Structure formats: C-alpha cells, structure tokens
C-alpha cells in the first residue's frame, strides 16, 4: 500500500486531501508545515509527497529542493491556490503562485495541481506517480 505525506498550512485543505486519499486506500500522514513534513519524511520516507507551495516559514519550494537531494526517489505533487501570495502578505510586487509553481516544476516536482482541484484530478495525479 502506497504511503503519502500531505503538507499544507491550511488544515482544512490538508484534512480533505487526507480523507480523499485514505478513502482510496492510501496510507496518509498529514502535517501543517514544511518542517513537520520533513520530519515525517525523514522518519519514514513515503512514496509520494503532496505539498502546498506557499506556506509560512519554510515554503514548498525549499522543501522540494531538499527532497530532491536527500530523497530523490520520492515523488512530489505540488499544489497551490492560484493568485498571489495571499492577502496577509499582499504587496504590489508579490510573486504570483504561477511563478512559484513554475519554479517548483523547475526544481523537480513531478505534478502541479492548482486549487481547487477535484477528487478525480487529485487521484489521477497520484496514480500517475505510482510505480506499478
């Protein structure tokens, strides 16, 4: 049974993803920030990491970079809401999430999903990354 780590600072989003994946029979661990995600991965490397890109403190981009060097076999699905960094950090020259997503793909994420995605899209992306 494939194991998946879900990293999203939005608990609602992370939980929903976890519920969908569990429902489809995956073993899922969900955490709320990149550091916790890294710890979970170090503890027991999963097959797939589903991570938000824009998060406080360590962002998804850095997490993916670390994974690429230390856990090259782990597959990464990057997710992000469209739009900009979010209202809290709003500034006129805010880098858009598209730029982030493009960068994440650049450093080695295998899949990009923009929120809101539906169940089918999520499961299709996960299945594409599973070795069988």
């Amino acid at each position, binding site marked *: 049974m494939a194991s998946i780590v879900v990293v999203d600072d939005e608990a609602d989003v992370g939980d929903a993803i976890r519920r969908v994946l569990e429902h489809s029979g995956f073993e899922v661990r969900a955490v709320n920030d990149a550091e916790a995600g890294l710890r979970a991965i170090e503890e027991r490397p999963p097959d797939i990491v589903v991570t938000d890109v824009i998060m406080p403190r360590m962002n998804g981009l850095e997490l993916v970079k670390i994974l690429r060097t230390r856990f090259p076999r782990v597959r990464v699905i990057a997710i992000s*809401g*469209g*739009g900009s960094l979010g*209202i809290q950090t709003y500034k*006129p020259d805010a880098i*858009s999430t598209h*730029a982030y997503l493009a*960068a994440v793909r650049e450093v080695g994420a295998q899949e990009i999903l923009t929120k*809101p995605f*539906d169940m089918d899209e999520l499961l299709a992306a996960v299945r594409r990354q599973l070795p069988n």
Partner: protein
Amino acid sequence: MERVINSLRGRLLAVVLLINAALAPLLYLGLSRIVEEGYADLFVNSVRSYSRMVADQLEAVPSQDFAARSQDVLDDFAVSGLVVFAQIEDGTKRVRSAVSQLPAPGRGEDFHFHEHSDQAYYISHSVKRDDHEVVLRLGFDETPTLEQIAAAKRRVLAAVLAFALVSTVLAIALSRVIARPVVRLREAAKRIARGEVSTELLQHSSIAEMRELSHHLEHMRRELVGTSERLQSEIREREASEGKRLELERRLQHRERIATIGTLAGGMAHEFNNIMTPILLYSQLALNGTAQNGALASDLKRIVAAAHRARSLVNRILTFSREMDSQEARVFTLAPTVAEALALVRAIMPANIEIVVDPLEDTPPVSGDPGQLHQVVVNLCLNAYHAMRVAGGRLTLRLGAAEHAGKGGARERYAMLQVADTGHGMEPAVMQHIFDPFFTTREVGEGTGLGLSVVHGIVTSMGGSIQVESAPGRGARFTVLLPVATALEPAATDVA
C-alpha cells in the same frame, strides 16, 4: 461734433478760421484807410493846384473892369463841373459866379477832405492885385471822389473776402494732407487692436516726421508681433507638454489601480481557492459514499457543480490578475494568432453580424505571449459582438504597421491591430472608465467588467498602447499598438 472739433483736421481748420476772422476785418480796415487817404490826398492836391490856376488867371485880369471880367473867369471854371462854388472877396465887395450851386459857406477853409458832411471842399486863395490882395474862395464837389472811395473800398472788401475764402479752402486741403497719414495710422492701429496684428503701420507721407513716426511704429509692431508669436508658441509648447504629462500621469494612475486591484484579486483568489478545495473534495467524497440515485446524492452533485462554477469564476478573475505575471515572452507575428482567435469569434457571431477582415497582411514581429494576444483579440471581438447583438452590424478587423515618436523622441515602429464595430458606441463618460477593472454597463451577471482591463494589462505589459474612438450610435474602434520586437529583445523577466 465734439469729435470733429477734437480731431486734428478740426483743430487745423479752426485755427485757420480764427486767423481769418481776426485778420480779414483788420486787413479790410487797413486797406480802406490807405485807399481813402490816397484819394483824399489826390483830391486835395488837385484842388489846390486847380485853385492856384484860377488865382493865376485872376491875377492876369486887367484892373479895369475887374469885377465883370473876374465874374467871367469864375463862371468859366464853374462850368467845368468840379467847382460848385466860386467867389472873390475884395474888402466888402463880393463877386460870385452865377453858376455856384452852393451858398457861401459859413466857415473859412477846409483842411481835410470830407471834413464836413456838406460834400464840399472849400479853399481860400489870395490873389495879388496891383495894390492890394483879394481873396478867392472856391468850393469843390467831393461827391465823385467819395464815390470813387466807396467803389475802391468795395473792391478791397471783395479782395479780402476772396483771400479769406481761398485761404480757408487751402486750409481744408492742407489739413487733409497733414491729417491723412495720421488717420490712416489710426485705422491701422485700430485693426491691430482688433487682432489683425499683421496690418502694416508704415505710411507714405510727404511729411518727414510722419514718415519717421510711422516707420518707428512699424518697427515696434514687428518686434511686438515677433515677441507675441514667440510667446504664443512657447505657451502652446508648454500646454502640449503639460497635456503629455497629464496623460502619462493618468496612465500611471490607471496602471497602479489595475495593479492594486489585480493583486487584491489575486490574493482573494488564493484564499478563495483554499476554501474551495475542501468543499469540492468533501462533497465528492460524500457523493461517493451515498447511493447514486438518492436525494442526498443529487444535492451533493449540486454542491459539486456549484463549486466547479465558483472555480471557473475564480479562474476568470485570475486571468485578470495573471496579466501581472511575467509570462514567457517570445517573438511572433500577429497574423496567425489573430486568425486563430478569429476562428473562435466566427463560431459565436450570429448571422446579423458581418465580419470583415482586411487582408491579414504580415505585420512586423512583436514580443510577448501569443496566448495573451489571443485573449486580447477575443475580448475586443466579444465586446463588439455585445454592442451589435441587438441591431446587428459589421465587425472589422485590421492589421498593419504604424510609426510614431516613442519615448526619447526617436521614431518607433509598431504593429497595429484594429477592431472596429458599428454597434451602439459609448458616451464619453463611459469611455473614461472602460479600462477600469469591474467597470461594466452590462447587466449584473452578464458582464464581468474585466475584459478590457485584461486587454489593457496585456497590451501595456507588452510595452504597447490601446486607444479607443467612439461616440454614441457611431460604433467603436479599438486600436492596439505593439512595439516591434528587436532581434536582441531580452527574454521576459526571470521567474524564480
């Protein structure tokens, strides 16, 4: 009247008339006096020599029979008509000519002509006889001389009057000659004051001072006209640059507004998408766990459908905020992209709208994202469609090249895209706001008000500009100018 008196000509004339009025009587009186005196002298002289002649003749009369003989002499003279009285006094004896028309005067002798009002001039002369002297008294008629004097005076009067008349006429003529250049100068000055500043002030006049004056004035006028033209062109330049500055400011403000709203929309979309994700996932999850035909399932399907609609709405808003993103730019020509967009547009246009495409000639290459340009064309065409939906009309698409001064003044080349329609057009008040995000005149739910701000954002991000010409009922024409890509165009700003 007052004007006439105060005018230069009036003054000149008045002076001449005054001089005439004072001079003519004086002249008349003086000349009359001279004439009178001349005649009087002549009269007195001739009278005296005449009486001496009489006295000489009387002296020659022999002594015997003197009385009778002298009477004859006197009568002879008296008959000549000049003498109106002749008498010889010898002691108490008097011999008087019978021809005498006047009585013996009560007085002795006149010294001046016309001394008395009796129109006779009396003169006494002593005549030597052998042993004693007798007195000859003669009286002469003054009337003919008086008449001559009167006639002479009339001639003098006529001459003086003629002089006055001629001098007045001359004065009128002269005043005209003097006043003419002044009057012309005044007329020219009036015209200049009215704004015909190119009116010449130079006057041809035989009066040197007039010539000089008009010369100086003309010189002054040229200087002033030159100065005012310089000032006016300076003012025009300043107005133009002020207009340019305002235009730039307006564009900057517009960009800022779009950027702000765009960023806000982007931020909101981000949050919104985070919220939409669990809604979509949980409702689909729930749907999977229920009997597919139940009422719950159909409710959940509605939630999923609504969430999908919400997602597409957010995507539309994002299209707008995304124009702030740096897209991957490449060099491309307009024609293929426009043709592609046109195919889409044709698909939705109803039959009452005619599509006219000026041959999509090859335009100079531009730099940017062809997908975005696609969006520009579609948005402009959709707006045209909406403007003509009810009444029908014609949509015209045109590509071309343009050239005009860019920043720095150097001429820059542009690729041009024009979309024109014959729809309902716009009021100026609407036109002012069409590029503002969320500005729409369409029904709630029909228009997003984002179409043109997206277009504007894309065009400006490509370094181009967009212009609109429209009037109510006269359709609208949007002209997009995009700078021609140079071979060494740097790639779009880096992403990471």
